[in-house]
């Protein structure tokens, strides 16, 4: 019979698995929820119909929760950051648009640059 699982080295049917999936081949993996299963293969068989039965799925990952390294409250303090890092973004180079206009050229903005992946105009 399944019993208390908090002690190590005990038999249990109830292992915790985190479920991740992606909707399309091109999308990134997203965390869905967690489930209990006796092992990885069973967890995989249970995942889709438990959490994605109404949406498209292109792939599923199963991770045993014991393999997830989580942050504790103190570690989460390391996530704080000042809002002064415009130099990392295009925000710090906003004046270029006007400058290029003086030279009758356009700034290479995100829309322009990402369009280069398509056909040559």
């Amino acid at each position, binding site marked *: 019979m399944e019993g208390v699982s908090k002690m190590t080295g005990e038999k249990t049917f109830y292992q915790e698995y985190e479920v991740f999936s992606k909707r399309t081949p091109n999308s990134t993996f997203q965390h869905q929820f967690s489930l209990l299963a*006796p092992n990885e293969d069973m967890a995989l*068989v249970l995942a889709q119909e438990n959490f994605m039965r109404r949406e498209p799925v292109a792939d599923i990952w199963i991770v045993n929760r014991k393999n997830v390294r989580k942050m504790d409250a103190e570690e989460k303090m390391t996530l704080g950051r000042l809002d002064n890092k415009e130099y990392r973004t295009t925000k710090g180079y906003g004046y270029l648009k006007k400058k290029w206009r003086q030279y009758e050229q356009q700034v290479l903005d995100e829309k322009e640059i990402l369009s280069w992946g398509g056909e040559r105009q």
Partner: protein
Amino acid sequence: MSTTENSMSAEYKEAITHLLFQLADDDFLYAFRGSEWLGLAPHIEEDVASSSISQDSMGHAAMFYHLLEDLGVGKADDLAHLRPAQDRNNSILTERVNGEGYYMETPQYDWAYQVVRSYFYTQAKKVKVDSLCHSSYKPVAEVAIKVKMELYYHKLHWETWFKQLMSSTDVAKKKMNDAITVVMNDFGDVFSFGNLKPKIESNNLLDSEEEMKKRWHASIGPVFEALQMEEPAIPNHPVMNGRNGEHTKDLDEALLTLSEVYKLDPVAVW
């Protein structure tokens, strides 16, 4: 081969009608037996997952009944709910109860039986559906291509359960082996076409009974080999042949439940 109703010979229509009843009734009863497990599976996550298989299977039954409706045989809901047991063509295997006791009271269902019946049935269905994809009757071939898509999951699901329980405790192995015996006793009519065998086969509606039995063995063979178990044999002569309307009292009881509300007023809109 002709596929439209007006150019269909009487023999062809009789054969395809009979075959569609076999397919529809099989899935209708199989889905019903699966749905009786709702809320009672050994594990909550499994309850949710296997319910999808019952729903898919009921959906397949509905598609087959609608093909019969298209042939002018009757309304799909009438065909599913009103036909008496002797007019049903499902395999005996699909009508058997899950265990002792009425589902409205405190039934004692057997999960080993559920796993073995579902796994062997799914493998058999897959063999048939693969063959139906090339049927001379185009409407059923089109439905088969859709059904096939959902069978990959059904097969993975039940194969996982089958292999894992078979490789576990002695108690589980004993229960599973007992279930295999019970399931195989009823397996004689699964690949049978009943009295319509010559007409169904000669009109190329799907492959022969013998050919499909061979493929079923080929598909379960590696699993049994890996488990170091002997493959079960399909009985040559079914004790009862559901394809010819021979059924157990389990079917009578199932039909009473399945049609209880529908029969209150079959012309009403529900």
